[in-house]
């Protein structure tokens, strides 16, 4: 294998960095951040989330606040989903379309109050998103602020999450619904909770002021949650068929290749004219019996290259390799594929996305 690379000096750290080292995490570079890839092992952490409950440090993600009487109009102009449908205390998945057909980022929008929204953006895109939003703020009567450094963000995911959190939370979690967003006290600390996640399981994302993040993390450890790293986060989201920016989405990839047409609503917005064009590619699910498929492997049909693998792993739940691939639209309707692995063509069968649904 490759020789070790321990050059992590220039990387940014989350408020939970010390907690990760205490838990024996293996730290890696991710989008300019030093992040835990695993603690005990990707498989064990994956199973903990599928079967009980795990927690992820996602504090590297960016938080932007948009406030003011023009906040809604501004957000409507730069996103594809209909922000006007969000009531205070609700959240939804949304896209920031670019001006040439791809995405600037995929984001989550939380409506805090009537004229107050929180956006959560991908860590690697914080600077780019900020510049893009600033540029389009124009004469909207809205204020944009970068609160990324102020928040710790912990995703608590898995079927036992509610039961494990409830004794330490002053809100009746059983009465909340998916995409609810509310203020609460968790272990006595004022936090925001959102019933959202990226694993295909029920769960909550905990927004905690950075200074209290480590105390909450340690309390969650004590309550029985298993720390899980980026490795398990990736296998979980892949099984759940969730696209990841930089793999299934980019400035070049037409976002409707993903089939997520519900994210684009009938409204005026930036890049509208590009996004309404039918995509030439389609995101499909592939599986093999044994040979893992990895990002970048070429996909063939009838001896002709028709696409490329965008993400791949071995599914801990299914016990065999799974992958997502972007292929020509016509090829997607045909079925049989071969993937080139180290110069050899390997048969891959099509599996409907998502690979896993609770």
């Amino acid at each position, binding site marked *: *294998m*490759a*020789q*070790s690379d321990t050059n992590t000096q220039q990387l940014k750290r989350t408020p939970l960095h010390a907690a990760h080292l205490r838990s024996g995490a*293996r730290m890696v570079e991710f989008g300019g951040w030093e992040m835990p*890839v*695993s603690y005990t*092992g*990707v*498989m064990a952490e994956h199973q903990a989330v599928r079967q009980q409950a795990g927690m992820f440090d996602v504090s590297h993600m960016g938080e932007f606040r948009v406030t003011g009487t023009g906040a809604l109009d501004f957000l409507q102009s730069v996103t594809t989903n209909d922000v006007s449908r969000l009531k205070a205390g609700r959240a939804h998945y949304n896209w920031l379309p670019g001006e040439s057909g791809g995405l600037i980022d995929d984001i989550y929008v939380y409506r805090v109050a009537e004229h107050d929204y929180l956006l959560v953006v991908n860590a690697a895109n914080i600077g780019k998103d900020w510049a893009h939003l600033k540029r389009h703020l124009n004469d909207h009567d809205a204020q944009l602020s970068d609160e990324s450094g102020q928040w710790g963000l912990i995703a608590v995911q898995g079927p036992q999450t509610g039961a494990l959190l409830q004794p330490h939370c002053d809100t009746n979690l059983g009465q909340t619904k998916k995409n609810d967003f509310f203020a609460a006290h968790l272990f006595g600390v004022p936090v925001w909770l959102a019933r959202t996640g990226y694993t295909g399981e029920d769960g909550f994302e905990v927004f905690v002021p950075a200074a209290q993040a480590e105390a909450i993390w340690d309390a969650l450890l004590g309550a029985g949650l298993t720390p899980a790293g980026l*490795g398990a986060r*990736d*296998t979980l989201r892949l099984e759940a068929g969730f696209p990841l920016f930089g793999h299934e989405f980019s400035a070049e990839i037409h976002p409707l290749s993903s089939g997520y047409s519900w994210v684009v609503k009938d409204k005026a917005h930036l890049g509208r004219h590009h996004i309404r064009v039918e995509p030439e590619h389609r995101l499909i699910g592939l599986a093999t019996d*044994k*040979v*893992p498929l*990895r990002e970048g492997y070429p996909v063939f049909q009838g001896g002709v290259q028709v696409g490329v693998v965008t993400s791949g*792993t*071995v599914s*801990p739940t299914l016990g065999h*390799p799974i992958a997502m691939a972007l292929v020509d639209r016509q090829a997607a309707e045909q079925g049989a594929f071969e993937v080139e692995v*180290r110069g050899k063509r390997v048969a891959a069968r099509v599996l409907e996305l998502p690979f896993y649904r609770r």
Partner: protein
Amino acid sequence: MQTPSELKYAPTHEWLSGDGTVGISDFAQDQLGDVVYVELPEVGREVKAGETLAVVESVKTASDIYAPASGTITAVNDALSGTPELVNSSPYGEGWLFKLDVGEASGELMDAAAYGAANN
């Protein structure tokens, strides 16, 4: 981290025993994480030191395995096709990768002390 003193080690984390058996080090398996697939060379293949001849894949990534010495492949560990996790649980035992009939010139390998010092 175990680093048996009777073995020689490559900077790319393969170990080589006196009888030509090759595997990856305890450090390497720990860095890789859960091993889920191993691709091994064909018996009879002649390899040069430093040549890529096998692949060990974890959940996260595929890692090339390099020949720690020049020679001919005399055996491969078929058990790894059904139980690749042996590379994690027994990197110096049941998780061996292949055997090499080592020719005269072997690559530049480290003893356990030097390898351990380079990877702590």
